[in-house]
């Protein structure tokens, strides 16, 4: 009987979290990219009385939607009969997220860093629910000799650089002392960076690419770009749309060895059940069959398969700088579709280059007090509920702590993937509230936003609100209009703070 009474009391308390405005559910979302905003949107929809705060270490919101989308991606035109503006996905998503940020019960708090402005445990004391959606801001490394030579960057850093991210501002890659760049990896990010290196700069001049990057690209002497994969075309991670785009750049000669396109029986199996790979293979085959027009074209794009990087070579003329990549040729081993791995053959080959971009995967960064799976580079979780360790035991939960986005699933998927990811995490939160599982820390009201603001004020952290961001936004658009660009991004911390806070 006593248990039933306690259960009923817990259920009553849990309902009181959502339905009574005297004790509204206080939620903090860490990260303001797609995962963060879709989570906030769905939380507000599912819990009408909830207060949702979104924090981000940058003064600008939207995460990779602002800093990861390539500036030259063409507009997608609207097909519907509606009289709406034909905007591209980036702008549509930014508009949606802005509407969420402007919701009465939602606040965007920029310039607040988890781990330095405030610790995870402090955040969990202030809010009933904390959802970590801060993505992946580090890189997988190859662990081969020469990796720290100058001229070798991760694609992530390079993208930050040309997209005007304040942490990429000072990358200063040297594009003038070489005619060749090697990109390791053949996913969509690899294709993005290849495209930016190869596209005629006149076409980039009217995008929102950072002006210092445009200047560097205009003076670039890079004429050959190699996209190198360890395995074959059937294993390339790019998709049809991006591949078609790069194959269509003006004045670029495409080089693909037809012999590389031959398929193993396991390859055939993989292609049979995978539309994306089938279409990618078709596109590569068509491109390989086209006659070369070298000489007429100014730049070259080489698709290189079955090459595994063994080491980076140091230049003799410029100490400490990369001059080439030493590759081992590979063959595929393994019969199962999806299970073929690259095995070295003992034969080697070099590609000379002065710029290397590693596009082999992003990795998340752990914070103090957060269980982390270092092997997979994600937070151990069960449908978004953070687990206390990596054993996989779904009963060892960190109460009130959830994850969404790349931090939950690994760095894969597109913007829309986060929509479904957020649905799952919010569903888990709602289920936990319903079952009274947040009770031990949530029976009492929590300080929430007031508590956070007080704590940050005590620490002299200057918060950037959404309307402060709008000042940055207007300033960027104003600067861009005089240069025929949609915007000129403010790319140093100083400029951003000045525009937001003065």
């Amino acid at each position, binding site marked *: 009987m006593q248990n039933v009474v306690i259960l009923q009391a817990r259920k009553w308390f849990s309902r009181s979290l959502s339905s009574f405005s005297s004790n509204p559910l206080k939620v903090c979302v860490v990260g303001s990219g797609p995962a963060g905003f879709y989570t906030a949107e769905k939380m507000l929809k599912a819990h009408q009385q909830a207060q949702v705060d979104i924090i981000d270490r940058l003064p600008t919101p939207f995460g990779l939607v602002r800093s990861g989308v390539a500036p030259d991606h063409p507009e997608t035109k609207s097909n*519907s009969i509606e009289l709406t503006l034909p905007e591209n996905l980036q702008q549509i998503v930014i508009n*949606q997220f802005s509407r969420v940020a402007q919701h009465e019960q939602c606040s965007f708090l920029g310039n607040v860093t988890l781990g330095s402005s405030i610790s995870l445990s402090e955040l969990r004391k202030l809010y009933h629910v904390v959802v970590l959606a801060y993505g992946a801001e580090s890189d997988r490394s190859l662990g081969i000799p020469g990796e720290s030579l100058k001229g070798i960057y991760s694609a992530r850093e390079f993208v930050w650089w040309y997209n005007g991210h304040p942490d990429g501002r000072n990358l200063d890659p040297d594009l003038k002392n070489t005619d060749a760049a090697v990109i390791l990896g053949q996913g969509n990010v690899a294709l993005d960076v290849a495209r930016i290196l190869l596209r005629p700069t006149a076409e980039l001049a009217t995008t929102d690419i950072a002006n210092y990057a445009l200047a560097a690209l205009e003076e670039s002497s890079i004429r050959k770009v190699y996209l190198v994969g360890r395995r074959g075309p059937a294993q390339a*991670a790019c*998709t049809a*749309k991006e591949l078609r785009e790069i194959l269509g750049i003006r004045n670029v000669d495409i080089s693909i060895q037809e012999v590389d396109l031959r398929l193993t029986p396991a390859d055939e199996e993989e292609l049979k059940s995978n539309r994306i790979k089938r279409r990618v293979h078709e596109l590569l085959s068509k491109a390989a069959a086209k006659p070369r027009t070298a000489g007429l074209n100014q730049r070259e794009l080489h698709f290189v398969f079955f090459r595994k990087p063994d080491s980076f070579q140091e230049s003799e003329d410029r100490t400490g700088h990369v001059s080439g990549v030493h590759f081992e040729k590979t063959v595929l081993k393994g019969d199962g579709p999806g299970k073929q791995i690259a095995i070295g053959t003992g034969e080697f080959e070099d590609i000379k280059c002065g710029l290397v971009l590693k596009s082999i995967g992003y990795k998340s960064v752990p914070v103090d007090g957060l269980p982390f799976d270092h092997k997979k580079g994600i937070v151990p979780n069960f449908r978004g509920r953070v687990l206390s360790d990596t054993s996989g035991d779904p009963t060892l939960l960190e109460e009130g702590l959830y994850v969404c986005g790349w931090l939950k699933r690994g*760095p*894969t998927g597109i913007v*829309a993937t986060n929509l479904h990811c957020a649905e799952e995490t919010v569903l888990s939160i709602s289920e936990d509230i319903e079952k009274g599982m947040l009770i031990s820390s949530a029976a009492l009201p929590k300080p929430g936003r007031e508590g956070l603001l007080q704590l940050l004020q005590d620490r002299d952290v200057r918060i950037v609100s959404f309307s402060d961001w709008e000042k940055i936004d207007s300033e960027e658009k104003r600067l861009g209009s005089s240069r025929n660009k949609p915007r000129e991004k403010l790319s140093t911390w100083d400029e951003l703070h000045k525009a937001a806070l003065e």
Partner: protein
Amino acid sequence: MLSSRLPRLGPWIAKRLFTRNYASIYRGRYNQSTRNRFLQPPAFQQLSLNKLYNGAMIGKHNFLSTTSNEGNEQKETISVTFVDKDGEEQHIRVPVGMSMLEAAHENDIELEGACEGSLACSTCHVIVMDVEYYNKLEDPTDEENDMLDLAFGLSETSRLGCQVIAKPELDGIRLAIPAATRNFAVDGYVPKPH
């Protein structure tokens, strides 16, 4: 639970009553004379209104364009059934020329449309349940195929809801909405590119 639902009931009713597309109330009981009794504007305004809305977004404003006297102005509708992930069916009428995504939204059917119909995502993915209807559709463009590539639970008769436009031959079409929430978490060997 009821106490928290009651305040929401009023607006819910109001929304249903005053929504411009009355298909959501008169589902399956579409009746022209019924509409006219409630909605017919004064006769002298009727003509000018028709002229105004002729050729414009008739799909949304069809209640203004119909009278029994001017029957040829009336937009034809077809019958469409949406089947959700739990097998529940919703029968709606869709004006010719409207996309299935729009129709779903007009009738509060849960079909996501993250890019608002601009062929930049795959969240409005629907499965055409009968292959004869699938064959009546025009072939998808490269752009639609690019997005279908990324759809969860893709099938042989999958299409994007924003690209399926209602036409008379599709009367009676049944569309299933795949369960995306669970699907993506099941990590098959299908890669998730970005």
